[in-house]
Structure formats: C-alpha cells, structure tokens
C-alpha cells in the first residue's frame, strides 16, 4: 500500500498541549514519525536574562503547570550553588515534603489524563479527585493551588502551619486505601492491559542513548534516580527505594511505565512520612541572601518527568548572563520515532500518553 504522512495535532485529543506529531503510515502501521514543537515557546531563558535572580523564581513555576514546584526548586538550587548560600536544616525538610507532594499531584495528573486516552473516562475522574486532595495540601503553606512560588532562594516562603502533619496523614491514609481500589480497577482490568502491554517498547540502552530519563527509563529496568544518584536536599538521610520494573513480561512498555509511577506515589508517601518524623525545629529562611553572582553553576534534580538540569552563568551583576533549562520531555519527544515505529495508528494515544508529556517545559 502507498505510504502517506498524517498530521496529528496541534489540536488533537492525543497531544496534551500544543504540538504536532506527523506520522508516516503504511496502511495502519507507523513507519516513521516527525514531532514538531514551538507552539508554546515563550522564551523563558531570554526573559530570565532581563530579570533579577530573585524575580526569576516565578518564571520556572510556569514551565510546567502540573509540576511547578520541582522546576522552581531546580532553579533555586542552581542559584544557591552559584551564590554559595547555605539553607537551614528545617527548610530542606520542608522542601522535600513539598517536592514529594508535587510529585504525587503530578503523577495523579498524568494518570488522570492517560485514562481518557485509553477510553476510560471514569479513571480520569477518580485520579483527578485524588489530585485535588494533594492540591489542597500544597495550598495550605503556599496559598495557591497551581503556581506556588513557595521555594525561595535561601529557603522557603514560610514554615508549615500547625496541623499540617495531621492533615497530610489523613489525606495519605485515604489515598492509600484508594490505591488498592485502583489496582483492582486498572491493573486487573483486561481491557487496560490489552491496550498497554507490549506497546511502545524501548530498551534501557535505547532510553539512555536517546535521552529518555525519569520514570520512563526506570520502566525499562534502569535503577537510576537522581534523588539517590546525585542527592540534594535531604534525600540522603531518608529511607526510600528506587522503583523500577525488572526484566520479564511487561518490561519497558506502557504498562510498566504506569506501574513505576504508581509505585513511586507509594514511595513518595513513605518519604513524606519519614520527613515528618525526622524534621527538626528552626528557621526556614537563610538570614542573608546575596543579590549578585559571578561564575557558573549547574544542578540537576529528579523532576516528576525525568532529569531536570539548569545551567546558569553569572557575570557579576544581579541578573543571570545565561540561563539554560534542560527539559526531560524535550528529548523524550525527540525520540518518539524510535518507540512509535512498527505499532498501529490506534496505539499512538496509548504510547504518547504513557511518557507523560508536558509541553510547557518542552517549549520553554
């Protein structure tokens, strides 16, 4: 049969944000693909060069609306490395708690948007209902529901209020019960497994070479998590394990990526509980924070979607000379032709949904 190019997007239920996936099909089989980006490009890097270091904390919040705290945190961590700022012990714990709450909310956002991709509207409502619980928790110290601007250079905006620990414990207990329900609803569902198993496979070696990181890489068995392999904040002292899927059936496919995220949510709650136990009292913001910076620094963190890296060059003024953002999704989307080839057109929503695309951070 003759081959032809089909354009999916920028307005398509599969895309989750504005981008175009051009696929070359032979009948129903995908033979090539060409993703196109740029619809959401806001030149965040250039904007950052015009504003002062402390003003910029609001910008990375807007990189990804589903996981905004992790991006602000990556920026703040880099600036602190550049300026040699030491932050108080308690602030590290508060940051870790907020990061893990954000990871839970982000993974739930993903799960909720992945289910309609597979025709499972009920799943969307269930997962988004639970995301609401964690958004309420994030709202308590930060005051907002989506873009928090909570993590500041030198610490956090304010301490966790009274009663936060009890409220968080209540939410996590409820959510754990619901996770058990969901394993019956999704993991044991034949239709869900038929759509996701043995679809969109890639190997660990492919993922590493193509720049696919985070839960997608751990889904193919690579035991690599920057919270353990390049520790920041307090992760070194916390008791937790890296979640991977071992080789075997369901290895490196859409279902394994789903399972890794579900297991990571359980692990995040374990981290939060351990933080509550070990958290010391004290201030949450450093007393003196420099304004100017000279030199260069980079830090990488484990974002909800993979390896986030920021590289900042300071020229001695109060604004960055160059601010470079590495988005994990940018390279994951670039690798789309490799994991789409050979599958059917009907598998595209299942595959592209499973890698957890966020166009805000990709287009910068």
């Amino acid at each position, binding site marked *: 049969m003759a081959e032809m190019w089909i354009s999916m997007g920028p307005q398509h239920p599969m895309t989750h944000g504005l981008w175009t996936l051009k696929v070359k099909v032979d009948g129903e089989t995908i033979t090539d693909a060409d993703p196109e980006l740029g619809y959401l490009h806001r030149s965040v890097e*250039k904007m950052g060069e015009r504003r002062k270091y402390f003003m910029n904390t609001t910008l990375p919040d807007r990189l990804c609306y589903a996981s905004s705290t992790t991006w602000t945190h990556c920026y703040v961590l880099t600036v602190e490395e550049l300026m040699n700022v030491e932050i108080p012990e308690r602030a590290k714990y508060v940051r870790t708690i907020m990061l893990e709450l954000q990871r839970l909310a982000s993974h739930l956002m993903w799960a909720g948007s992945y289910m309609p991709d597979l025709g499972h509207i009920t799943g969307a409502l269930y997962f988004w209902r639970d995301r609401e619980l964690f958004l309420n928790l994030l709202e308590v110290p930060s005051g907002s529901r989506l873009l928090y601007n909570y993590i500041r250079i030198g610490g956090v905006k304010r301490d966790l209020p009274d009663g936060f620990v009890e409220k968080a414990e209540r939410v996590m207990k409820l959510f754990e019960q619901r996770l058990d329900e969901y394993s019956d609803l999704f993991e044991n569902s034949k239709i869900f497994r038929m759509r996701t198993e043995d679809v969109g496979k890639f190997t660990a070696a492919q993922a590493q070479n193509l720049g696919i*990181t985070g839960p997608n890489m751990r889904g193919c068995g690579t035991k690599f998590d920057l919270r353990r392999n390049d520790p920041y904040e307090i992760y070194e002292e916390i008791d937790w394990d890296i979640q991977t899927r071992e080789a075997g059936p369901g290895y490196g496919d859409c279902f394994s990526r789903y399972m890794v995220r579900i297991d990571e949510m359980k692990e995040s709650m374990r981290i939060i509980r351990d933080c509550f136990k070990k958290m010391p009292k004290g201030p949450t913001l450093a007393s003196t924070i420099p304004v100017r910076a000279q030199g260069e620094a980079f830090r990488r963190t484990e974002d909800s979607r993979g390896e986030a890296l920021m590289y900042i060059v300071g020229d001695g003024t109060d604004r960055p000379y160059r601010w470079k953002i590495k988005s994990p999704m*940018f390279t994951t989307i670039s690798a789309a032709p490799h994991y789409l080839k050979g599958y059917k057109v009907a598998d595209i929503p299942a595959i592209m949904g499973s890698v957890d695309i966020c166009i805000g951070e990709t287009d910068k």
Partner: protein
Amino acid sequence: MEIKELMQELSAFKGVSNASMIRDNVVKLDIDKNSSKEFFTKLRDDFGFEHCSLITAIDNQPEFELVYHFTSINKSVTVGSTDMSVMTEVHVFLERDTPTIESISDLWGGANWHEREAFDLMGIYFVGHPDLRRVLLPEGFAGHPLRKDYVYEIHEEEW
C-alpha cells in the same frame, strides 16, 4: 574506574586543557574544537558516558562557548563507594565568524534536538547533523534571538 583516574586519563588526551573537579562527581575540562569529535567518541565508548544531558550555547561576545554535560548512568565510573553518578562538563570555544562544530548526534541520539535548539536560538552550525532545522521558532524566522547582538523590534521596559 575511580573518578580521579578518569580525570587523569581525560587530561592526557590531545587538545584537553584546564581539567579539574568542580564537585565530588563532576569533572570539568576544555577541549580544542578540532579534536572534539575524537574526544566525544572516546568518552562514550571507553568511559561509558551513555547519556548526553545537555548542550548549552553561550554568547560570550565575541566568541561562542558550547557546554556539554554527559552522565554516566550505569556507573562505569564511581565516586568511592557511594551511589553518585559521575558527570563530565566539556567546554568548547568557537570563533564568532565560524560558529561550526562537528555534530555528535550520531553518538548520542538525545543530542539531536539539543543541537537543533542551539542552532535555532544561537546560530551554531553542527556539521554532519542529519536534520538541522529550527525546532522552537517557526521556519523562516530571521536571526538567532539568544545572541546578545540580536535587535528586538519591540520596546523593552527596564525592570
């Protein structure tokens, strides 16, 4: 291999200068543009840096600077007995009149779009790249906006 050994072996390579350790798990060095491709091939094949994290282009006026970050994921290089993963930060300097360098997208698939982005926003030409098109800005856009000498048409307010 221990990270100290890595630094010694890398600094003995042709074209390498200013090798130093900027953190416990990060080696930083400069490489001459002409021997860069040979060096990157060695970095991937002999030292096991299987992941290209980032390619940054900086306009230092007048010359350009490229910063490569490579990660060793499977721990072929170690830091003592810790779980730390080792990174190499490579700096390459390019002259303003000839901002070209050999592409590494045949070595690391993940470098492909990083190079396209550096071309798009900073105007660095990667020789041997399979598909050097703009990636974030539309086709037909004039100039490279992250260069410091790029002139904006709109009025800019000073913050």
